[in-house]
């Protein structure tokens, strides 16, 4: 099935006390809840589940490919991804191996989003320094990119031991590396990196006003074209979103307000009303979520992936599953239809293993014909 725009969810994996009951889930409950949420995503017809990667409490997902491998075995269609894989503090050799292995186990239903992580103390735990965040992201990805494309790699860089005649195993499924998104909140350098490689750019726009992300995405699109990967409109863009829904919009506001007011990221600051006005957070009816999400296309252009944050701030599993029912049944079918309308033919569909394999095969055939 060709999917023009993929819809899915991303989880931070936070263990947060439910402010309405005072109850804090155990790590075990939270990990199992993340799995239940991923399975539900497939059940309600979503396309993608992405997990965060964190190495400090109160977050549980320190080992994303372990979790995604388990989910892969229990799903059929769902694309498994990350939000984000830490390219700064993880060894690119291990990332190459882990995700290639996952790709085989999941029959290609895998991609990943690279990010730097933003917590200073995490870096030295992995022998790195946050002041080198951008150079680490650049060098480590340059190596990861080669490890998936060259069978034997000689390499020397600034941040890890050199490699002589190294082969990363297993080789990517069908010789097609997992698609890579580069996630960024504020760094033009990362937009430039994504553009240079012709990779996807995911703007996690959920906590800030849209104007900032319009600049960042516009930069990525222009530079994508500059590097010869296509027109600016053909660049591969992903966006975040954050919603809470009930049939009746007043019920949604009433139920979500205590979670908002106490949320780790923005709680104890502006009111729910101010924050929803200034950022993409939408609390209301499914129709309000549809209307708001359709605006993204007007601001950022036709894009390929929309991920929603649904399971944070201490929301109980039962509520999250109800939210996913609403998302899958009432919101996404309408969005799919609306996003397909007037979508120019040259705008690429969301990249999957199948589309990338087809492109790789076509390119190989072309090259053979040219050489014949």
């Amino acid at each position: 099935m060709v999917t023009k725009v993929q819809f899915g969810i991303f989880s931070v994996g936070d263990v947060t006390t439910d402010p309405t009951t005072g109850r804090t889930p155990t790590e075990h409950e939270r990990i199992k809840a993340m799995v239940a949420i991923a399975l539900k995503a497939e059940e309600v017809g979503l396309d993608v589940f992405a997990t965060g990667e964190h190495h400090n409490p109160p977050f549980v997902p320190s080992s994303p490919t372990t979790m995604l491998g388990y989910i892969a075995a229990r799903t059929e269609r769902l694309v498994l991804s990350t939000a984000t894989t830490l390219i700064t503090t993880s060894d690119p050799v291990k990332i190459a191996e882990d995700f290639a292995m996952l790709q085989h186990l999941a029959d290609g239903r895998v991609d990943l989003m690279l990010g730097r992580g933003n917590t200073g103390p995490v870096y030295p735990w992995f022998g790195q320094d946050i002041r080198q965040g951008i150079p680490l992201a650049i060098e480590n990805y340059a190596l990861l990119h080669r490890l998936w494309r060259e069978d034997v790699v000689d390499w020397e860089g600034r941040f890890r031991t050199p490699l002589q005649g190294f082969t990363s195993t297993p080789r990517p499924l069908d010789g097609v590396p997992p698609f890579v998104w580069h996630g960024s909140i504020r760094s033009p350098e990362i937009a430039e990196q994504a553009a240079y490689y012709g990779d996807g750019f995911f703007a996690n726009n959920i906590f800030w006003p849209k104007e900032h992300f319009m600049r960042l995405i516009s930069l990525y699109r222009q530079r994508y074209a500059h590097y010869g990967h296509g027109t600016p409109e053909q660049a591969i863009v992903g966006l975040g979103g954050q919603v809470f829904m009930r049939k009746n919009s007043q019920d949604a506001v009433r139920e979500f307000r205590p979670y908002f007011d106490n949320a780790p990221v923005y709680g104890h600051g502006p009111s729910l009303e101010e924050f929803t006005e200034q950022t993409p957070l939408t609390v209301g009816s499914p129709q309000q979520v549809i209307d708001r999400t359709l605006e993204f296309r007007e601001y950022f252009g036709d894009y390929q992936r929309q991920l929603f944050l649904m399971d944070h701030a201490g929301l109980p599993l039962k509520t999250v599953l109800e939210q996913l029912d609403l998302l899958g049944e009432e919101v996404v079918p309408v969005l799919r239809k609306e996003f397909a309308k007037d979508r120019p033919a040259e705008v690429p569909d969301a990249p999957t293993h199948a589309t990338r394999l087809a492109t790789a095969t076509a390119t190989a055939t072309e090259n053979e014909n040219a050489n014949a």
Partner: protein
Amino acid sequence: MKLVVVTAGLTQPSATRLLADRLTEAVTRRVAEEADVHVVELRELAVDIAHHFVTGFPNARLRAAIEEVTAADGLIAVTPIFSGSYSGLFKSFFDVIDNTALAGKPVLVAATGGTPRHSLALEHALRPLFAYLRAVVVPTAVYAAAEDWGGGGDAFTDGLGERIARAAEELAALLRDRKPGNEADRRPGEETDRRPGDEAGERLVPFEEQLAALRPAR
């Protein structure tokens, strides 16, 4: 010529605002051209500034104030002295401004307090703050204690009026000498040539250069 006045007084009316107004009047009288004066009352932005700390972005009202300050040719910054230093609100405003926004900008610093014993807070707290921001702070900083509003000078010190005049003349001299497009008007790091990303309002180093910078030295 755009003169922006940041005042952190909390009461209405406030001595801090009164000092700010007297400084503003003294400066505008000394510059030949018409001064476009804009006053930023931090009291009105107190909650917005706190929200910025929590959310990481300014709301529309705070953003407008930050843009005014960033675009100013000269700045007058006045705070009450609390617990021996600038007020928390005053510092918080300068904490949420980009740390290059004031670089090269002429600034007059002033403060109010109940007792003259805290006057050196201007030299020990405000001046280093603006030094960090790479602003050009005029030599005379004006402190107005409660008693200054009524009294004149004495054998050792000029009165408040004289000190206002001296500081205003120092700021006005910098504003008069300002040449359009000179170093002070340009944001640091900004170059005259065009760079990739200019169209999108972002500046960046082309990726090949970023990669090349990481190649091990041979």
